[in-house]
Each structure stands twice: as C-alpha cells, then as structure tokens.
C-alpha cells in the first residue's frame, strides 16, 4: 500500500472514532465483557491447576507394613518400590517415629497415651509420585500394585478428593469454551452491527467513493481496522478488570476459604493467556467487520 493510502485509511479511522464515539465505546465494552468472562474462567482454571500441582507435591501414598518386619527386611522392599517408574521418593517411618509424630499431633493432651507401648502403631512407607503421575488414575494404579506386596498390610491415599478436584478443573476447562463460545457468537453479532451502523452512517460517502473509482480495498480497510482497534481496546479493558478482580480476590480468598496456605500461590494470567485474550479481541473485531462488510457493501 502506498503512503497516501495508509494516511487516507488512518484519517478515516480517526474520523469514524470521533463521529461514532459512543457506538465504538459500547462495542468495545461488550467485547470487554465477553473477554472478561472468558478470561475469568481462564484465571480460575489456571489457579486451580496451580493449586493442584502445589498440593500434588504433598500427595502421598501411605503403605503400612506388617509388624513382624525387621529393618533388614524393609531395606529390599524400599529399594524395590523405588524402582517403580511412577515413584519419586520413598521414606521409611519406623514404629518409633510414628509414635513420636502421633504424640506431637496430640500436643498437650499426649498424657492420655501414658502407659501405652510405642509399638501399637505400625511402621509405614511414605511414597511420593513423580509430578507427571500425580493424578487419580496413577495413584490408584500404584496403590493397587502395592497391595499385592506381601509385606504391606494396608494402603491409603487421598482418593475421592483427588477425583473430585480433577473433575472440577476439567469442568471449568470445558465451561470456558462452551460458555465462551456462545458469548463470542453474540459478540460477533454486536460487532457486526456496529460496523453495519458505521457503514450506513457512511453510505453516501461510500457510494461516492465507489462512483469515482476508489478501489474496494481502500473502502473496506478502514472498517476492518476499526474493528481490530475495538477488539484490542475491549481486550485491554477486560485485562484491566481481570487484574482488579484478581487483586480483590487474592486479598479476600485465603480468609474466606482457608484452602490456601500462602497468598503467593495465586497467580495472574500467564503471558500466553494474556496474548490469547488480546488475539481473541483482535480477531473478533476483524471477523465481525469482514462479515458485516460482505453483507452490506455488495448491495450497492
């Protein structure tokens, strides 16, 4: 495109924003709403995912050992378990250590244990899995194999809880696209409508331009660029609101829910998600304009 064309397109876009300011603001606002909702889901999903990962490192399988086992017999068992491909680490907790831990957890009330012998609690193995296997299926699989070990009397792991939490993350992942999809369609219509208004407001001008031989590209480009600018504005606006929401929630959540141990566990959107939102805004604007142009320009 020649410089004179670029400057022409640029001036027309400016003029349109000046003359149809409120239409443009409303459309950008609508786009911002859609992207805000979509981005909100993205934010929740990302943080739950982060939490899941964080908690995952604390997720362990407890394998309780037969009481008759001697330290020498435990050694080969531990080594064998370390050979499992899923297993990251295995820690042996002796009967004595278990007893100490138990006493500690009772704190001031540990007096009730007076007179009991230390060997009523079984020795156990605390088995942590590698990050890639910290999901419900792998946990269940490993637990199943542990049960077949003759020296292990019982196996425990946070079963239900894991399954539900994974399901929640999955649900949010899907809801984001389904609800987002509907919102995007609606927004596309609204953008298309704005462009329609912009075209109708300029109908005479466009006709004159066509009659004096303006190339079609020169007539269409300003509208497409307007759409893109609206989209980027809307996306930026939604990011601003998401950021405010994030600040607000991260100051509130830990107290109301008590699931969070550390505020730093909360994260704002990753750079890729920020880019995705900006891209979606940009694309919605461009596509909305193009669809509308196709419908309304060819009639004359």
């Amino acid at each position, binding site marked *: 495109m*020649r*410089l*004179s*064309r670029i*400057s*022409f397109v640029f001036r027309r876009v400016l003029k349109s924003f000046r003359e149809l300011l409120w239409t443009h603001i409303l459309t950008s606002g609508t786009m911002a709403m859609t992207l805000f909702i979509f981005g909100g889901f993205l934010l929740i999903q990302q943080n739950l995912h982060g939490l899941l990962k964080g908690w995952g490192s604390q997720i362990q399988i407890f394998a309780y050992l037969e009481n008759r086992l001697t330290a020498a017999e435990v050694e080969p068992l531990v080594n064998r378990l370390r050979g499992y491909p899923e297993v990251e680490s295995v820690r042996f907790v002796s009967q004595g250590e278990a007893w100490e831990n138990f006493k500690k957890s009772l704190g001031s009330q540990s007096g009730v244990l007076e007179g009991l012998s230390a060997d009523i609690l079984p020795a156990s193995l605390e088995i942590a899995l590698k990050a890639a296997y910290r999901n419900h299926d792998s946990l269940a699989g490993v637990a199943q194999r542990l049960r077949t070990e003759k020296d292990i009397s019982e196996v425990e792991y946070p079963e239900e809880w894991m399954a539900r939490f994974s399901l929640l993350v999955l649900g949010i992942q899907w809801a984001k696209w389904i609800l987002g999809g509907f919102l995007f369609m609606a927004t596309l219509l609204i953008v298309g409508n704005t462009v329609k208004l912009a075209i109708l407001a300029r109908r*005479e*001008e466009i*006709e*004159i*331009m*066509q*009659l*004096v*031989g*303006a*190339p*079609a590209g*020169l007539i269409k480009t300003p509208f497409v660029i307007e759409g893109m600018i609206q989209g980027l504005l809307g996306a930026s606006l939604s990011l601003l609101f998401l950021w405010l929401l994030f600040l607000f929630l991260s100051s509130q959540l830990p107290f109301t829910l008590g699931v969070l141990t550390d505020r730093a566990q909360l994260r704002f959107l990753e750079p890729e998600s920020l880019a995705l939102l900006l891209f979606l805004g940009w694309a919605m604007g461009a596509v909305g304009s193009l669809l509308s142009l196709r419908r309304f320009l060819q009639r004359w």
Partner: protein
Amino acid sequence: MIHLFRVSKIYAPNYPALVDIHLEIEKGEFVFLSGPSGAGKTTLLKLLFRGEEATEGQIIVNGRNVTRLNGRGVARLRQEIGLVFQEFRLLPTMTVLDNVALAAEVVGTPVRESRKKAFNLLRELGLKDRHDAKPPALSGGEQQRVAIARALVNDPILVLADEPTGNLDAEMADETMRLFARIHDRGTTIVIATHDAGLLKRFSYRAVFLQRGRLLGDSKFAGEAAT
C-alpha cells in the same frame, strides 16, 4: 471512445428499459442523450460506468470491455470517467473543498496535491470564496459547479452528466452548459442526458433520441432536429 453493440437492459420482465441499442461516440464528441421521462437515458449512462450491468450486448468504453470487468476493472474504468448527477450528490457534512479533494484522494493522489488540485478547480469555476462552506449552504448552481469540479478533479477523458441542468433556472442552466463546452474544448468527450428540448436548441451538439428504450434518431446521421 464509446461503442454499444445491440445492448439491452431489462429490469423487469416484459418491460425493457433499453432495447437493442446500437451507438458509437467518438473521442472528443459532445453528445446529448435526449428523450421523454422513462426513455432510458439514465439507464444508458449507468451502463457506461457499470452502475448497472447490461442484460445483453457488448459495451466498450475507453477500450475496456465494460461487460466483462471485475471489481478492480470497474474501479479503473471509473477513474477515467467524471460523473455528474442531477441531485449533485455532494456530501453535506464535508466542506466543498473536501468534497472535491476526496475524489482525488481515493484514487491515490496525495492529500496535499488533491487539495491543491481541488482548490485550483474551484477557483476556475468561480467558487474560490466558497471552498470552506458546506454544500447545503450553497445555491443550486453553486452546488452543481462543485459537483462538476469533483467530476473533473481526476482529469477524466470522458464526462457523463445526468440532467446536469435539471435543478437550475434557465440562466444557470446555460451557464453550466458553457462550462461543459469549455471542458469539451480541452478535448474531453462529453455525454449529457437531458429531457430539456430547449437546451438542445440553444446548443447545437449531436443529439441522440431515445423513446421507451429504443434509439429513434441521431442528429449526426439524419439531421433530425429536436422535436
């Protein structure tokens, strides 16, 4: 310059707007398209700049086969043609100068050059003092001259005007015709559609007569005078 071979235009079935038109206009000619209301004058002009598509026949304008042009070809054809409408069709929210300059800009002339060209033309047409006004503030005759300035700003080799004097009083009409005569003197081909028989009498250019979509006479060949 303009060749029409057996051209027909049918908007609605059984009611053709143009039937089997055969017409040749040479470079540098000045031609009136005349005939009563509904004769098909406007339709014929529209066919020449592809404002409408011919239903049948072949049309050549400036060596371009108008019936076979794509979008880009239509734009290029129109860049060589200056159009003047009866209703002027000026943009009411733009200044006179911007109205004229816009036409130059959209075909790729840089802004400053476009505005300079527009200003010079307006001065030539006696509108120097009105270049900053908006069209609604102008008289009919002034608006018509602005419309003519816009048609001329891209140095067309062909000017098509539809009832350019329709909204003007007799004096203004003659003034406008003399303006067209001056443009014609520079070698521009001019085709003017009009149902004003008086105009044909006062300006003795070639006249082509249409009636109910048929070409009934051509002063160039038969010497048929205006009726």
